[in-house]
């Protein structure tokens, strides 16, 4: 309403100038998370809004042999359009399960990661891919892991005047790549959960197992992952039960009964690929 102002910088330099002047401004990228729960005629914004949609420097992807860099203002659809050959499989699968096409055309990678209410879809695959985030400020930049970008309690690890510019995904090859979504695929809902699992093997040994889940809570335990890392393949039924028990215990309080059961089942399902039954 009256008094609100929108600023639309076209370069990062312009952005930093504006945000220095208006440190409390809302940073607007795709806007889907801000708008999706406002069904009134007019959108309610805070007093100042900085739209970063027109900043090309953070809207493009680049790739080297060692990593894939995604611009934080890239939309989900733009990332998916990079194709199956470029995007790591577990991320690619998650993108396909993301909301509906119209929303994929608007929602951005950065916006999805920075949702404070809960960890949204992309947080899960990017987290297990050990992606790092470039946080820019006027005077330079720093790289932080996802776990520091958004803390488990939803606290955002970037300061005023800073902006998430890029997400860097290491080009690791995993033999096992699994992504599933439970609950509504199309709209965020308390019953929605995203599950991802990756595993590397080497010389008959499970060398790198990673697994994460985001529902009402985000969950990943490196301690449990390390329990089975180094085990011989195929895993025995006992290995699987040990891991499942560990997750059951960890999750006892964190999730509602349905999501917890789904997570444990999904974990069992993922592990079954590494047992005699599923392992090739």
């Amino acid at each position, binding site marked *: 309403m009256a008094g*609100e102002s929108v600023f639309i910088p076209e370069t990062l330099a312009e952005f930093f100038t504006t945000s220095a002047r208006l440190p409390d401004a809302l940073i607007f990228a795709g*806007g*889907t998370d801000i708008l999706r729960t*406002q*069904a009134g005629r007019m*959108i*309610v914004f805070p007093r100042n809004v900085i739209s970063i949609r027109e900043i090309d420097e953070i809207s493009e992807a680049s790739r080297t042999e060692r990593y894939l860099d995604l611009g934080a203002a890239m939309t989900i659809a733009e990332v998916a359009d990079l194709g199956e050959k470029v995007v790591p499989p577990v991320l690619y699968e998650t993108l396909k399960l993301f909301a509906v*096409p*119209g929303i994929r055309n608007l929602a951005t990678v950065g916006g999805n990661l920075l949702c404070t209410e809960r960890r949204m879809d992309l947080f899960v695959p990017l987290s297990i891919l050990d992606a790092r985030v470039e946080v820019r400020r006027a005077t330079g930049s720093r790289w932080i892991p996802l776990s520091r970008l958004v803390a488990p309690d939803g606290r955002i690890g970037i300061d005023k005047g800073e902006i998430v510019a890029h997400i860097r995904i290491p080009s690791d090859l995993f033999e096992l790549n699994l992504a599933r979504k439970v609950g509504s695929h*199309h709209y965020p809902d308390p019953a929605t959960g995203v599950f991802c699992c990756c595993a590397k093997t080497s010389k008959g040994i499970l060398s790198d197992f990673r697994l994460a889940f985001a529902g009402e809570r985000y969950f990943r335990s490196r301690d449990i992952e390390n329990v089975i890392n180094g085990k011989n393949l195929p895993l025995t039924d006992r290995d699987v039960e040990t891991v499942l028990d560990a997750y059951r215990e960890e999750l006892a309080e964190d999730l509602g009964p349905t999501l917890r059961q789904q997570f444990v089942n999904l974990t069992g399902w993922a592990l079954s690929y590494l047992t005699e039954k599923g392992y090739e």
Partner: protein
Amino acid sequence: MIIGFILNGDDVSARVEPGDRLVDVLREQFRLIGAKAGCYAGRCGSCTILLDSRAVPSCMVPAFAARNTEIITIEGFSQTVDYLDIERGFQRAGIETCGYCTAAKVLTAHALLDKNPDPDDEAIRAALSGIQCRCNEPSGLVAAVREAAVARQRRIYGR
């Protein structure tokens, strides 16, 4: 603020408030009423337009975000040859839409064919999954988009 964008091929400008939604600006300032202001929550898809060639719900786009973009509404799209393919497809399949979601379906079908000229049933259903309407009749819609794909291939490649 005043924003400039390309609307159905023309350079236009509009005076908008920060809280204005693109769908309302299109409907009220430009009288382009093919996009319906259905739910204001990005759920029903009735307000779909093409924004830089991508089908998006225009209720989820603040008007200011349309600055420097190219927007095509059903009114503009229906003047193109591309539209004739979709029209033919819908007519061949003999489906009846309620009129409220129709522009969304036409534009979404076009955006799909633009990227994927020969989509399978699954791709068609996925592409249209953001349009919630009680008139959705799944097999007819899939057939309509398939027919449209055939029409387009025939027009472009003569086969």
